[in-house]
């Protein structure tokens, strides 16, 4: 019962902060509300007992990635005049919503038809670091290595992209 209540509270937080995110005018506002979303999602993981993912979400998403976004926003020193003009923002959001609505409604109704969804979540301690670690290093070692290579590549790519192009100037 308590789990249900907590779930609804967290869901409300996630959705509200997501809506704030997409409607905020300044990126700094969006980034701050994005923190709320991410932390709430992390709490949702914790609610289901996935302790390892909870930690990862907090550390990487809410910690590293968001810190990076905030850092960039401040580093670029974005003034209000740099922001794009969005006079029809409300109209755009409305039309986009209409465009997406069929997808959302149909998908939700299809989900509710599935026999699987009536099961209650066990809410036990599942998905601890030991379990996930053993799965990764037994069955998904190659994927793990590939991910590490991908990270390396993106690191190099980011450096070479952001480097000032001397030939142009």
């Amino acid at each position, binding site marked *: 019962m308590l789990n249900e209540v907590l779930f609804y509270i967290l869901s409300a937080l996630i959705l509200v902060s997501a809506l704030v995110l997409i409607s905020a005018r300044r990126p700094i506002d969006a980034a701050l509300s994005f923190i709320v979303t991410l932390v709430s999602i992390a709490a949702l993981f914790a609610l289901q007992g996935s302790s390892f993912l909870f930690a990862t979400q907090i550390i990487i998403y809410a910690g590293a990635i968001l810190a990076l976004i905030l850092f960039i926003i401040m580093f670029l020193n974005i003034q209000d005049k740099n922001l794009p003009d969005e006079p029809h923002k409300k109209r755009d959001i409305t039309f*986009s919503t209409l*465009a*997406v*609505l*069929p*997808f959302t409604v*149909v*998908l939700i*109704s*299809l989900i509710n*038809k599935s026999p699987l969804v009536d099961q209650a979540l066990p809410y036990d301690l599942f998905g601890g670091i030991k379990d996930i670690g053993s799965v990764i290093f037994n069955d998904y070692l190659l994927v793990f290595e590939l991910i590490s290579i991908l990270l390396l590549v993106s690191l190099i790519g980011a450096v070479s992209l952001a480097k000032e192009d001397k030939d142009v100037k």
Partner: protein
Amino acid sequence: MPLDILLNILLLAPFFSALFIAIIALAQPSSPKIIYSILAIFAPLLSAFLALILIYENYFNGIDIHSEIFTWLSVSAFHIPFSLHLDALSSLMLLFVAPVGFLIHVYALGYMKDDSSYPRFFALFNLFMFFMFLLVLGDNPIMMFLGWEGVGLSSYALISFYYEDAKNVAAGNKAFILNRIGDFGFLSALMLLFISIGEYGFSFSTIELHLHEMSAERINLIAALLFVGAMGKSAQFPLYVWLPDAMAGPTPVSALIHAATMVTAGVYMLARFSDLYAMSESVSLFIAYIGAFSALIAALMASREFDIKKILAYSTMSQLGYMFMAEGLGAYSFAIFHVFTHAFFKALLFMGAGAIIMSLHHEQDIRKMGGLRKSLPMLFIMMLIASLSISAIAPLNGFFSKDAIMGHIFASDAYIIYGIALFTSILTAFYMFRMLFFVFYGEEKIKAVAVSKTMIIPIALLAVGVILSGFLNVPSSFGGSESISIWLNLPDIREFLDHTTEFTLIGLNTFFIFVAIFVAYLKYGSATATREDVDKYRYQKIISNKFYIDELYHILFVKPLYKMSKGFDVYINHKIIDSSIHRTIALYYYIASYYRLIYDGSVRLYALFMVFGLSGLFIYLYFALEAM
């Protein structure tokens, strides 16, 4: 080793040597010449050696050798194995193709030694040997056709060998295109043959067995179409105009391909299908007349020609005419025997001519030659032997084969053809000795350079062949046994003359020949001869201009075709096809100019389209699942 494997090696040796020469030349262009020389000589030598072994087996032990290398095509009833068959006919062909081919390869080593395209020449020359063997040894008409086309291809490439000069390329094209016309006939005949009796199998032996199942008209049609093929390949009227131009190639090529082997393929093909021709008298008679006519006009043109190689080319055409006369009148084995002897003396003549041309710094006009008797005495003797042989003087090989043909023509009561043949024979002696006197008598105009040994030795060996090879088929009137005719076992029509008539005819012929030689001596050889051969009379002018046949063909075929192409180019291509394509393009461009408005480069808009698609898909999915 089993004989069929020897046969395979005989066939494939030139092919692989051609392949290796080509690979080496492409991979390592700076390789020393000796490598190419060894490769180029080794394969024909091996082939000639194996050919002699196999022919020995066939002649003395009567073994027909059959070898199936692989299945080439198998489409329901159309089963074509890549198979070889050596019987008496192909043995006799091999008996001159392989050794003469080898000798000309040796000769070519000397002839081509300063040429920059040395490997290209020998690769093509060896390739030609491969295709010629395939043509002779093929067990079914398809294999024969493969060889037939292959020799045509190598001939084309070798005629245009000095491709830097556009004239030589044009000569190659001419040969190739005229041969295409012939091939059209050959191919149509093969298709008809297959439609008619193809279901029993398509090797020569099965075709022979089932020939009688076809109607007479069908047989006549096939025979005529096959002869069209032979006309092209063997340079008979009216498809002969390529042969004189083909002399643009190097002289060894002229000797091997355009005198000794390839041009006789038509005669060989007719002999292969001799059972068919034996059933088709009208077409055979037509062939005899075409042969006679070709022999006559070729001899006439040769007697007014000044290019030494072209004289020999016309003489080849004339001799081929004799072979077709013989085949038309049913003397297949005599025709094949003439092919055999002709290969020797004609190769000898060409090689001699090549040696003369080389020693005179590539001079081909006989008016500018003269007096070579003193500086090149060996060559003079060889050329004299060959000229006597082609003029049918006993006991050289030309006498035995040509005389057999003449006797047969007389015995078949074909007196018109006999008259033509006799006149041509006299003309032959005249033009050969005209050439000989021009080249070897009179004053020496260009100083001759000594000829290399690799060229003289093959010529000498061939001369021995010319002297001896005639004795293989001595007619019964001279107490011989005609062993080759019996060995070949072709469906000959045998006509016998009593010996008195035969000796009279031979005496008459020989007498006229000596008269012709004497006339030629008076005109061109004696000390008082003017040796200027200008056209005094109208008929001489017509002959000198080769009866205006080339011009006629140009007006009849080339010009209308050219005009038609031009018309097609302007009206059909530009006005109809191109403009319709351009209009279509313009239409699409117009439509696209509206369509392009949607895609203005804003990625967000693209994302919106994607979401529309996604939503549409899900709506469809929903109703589709509801319906289930």
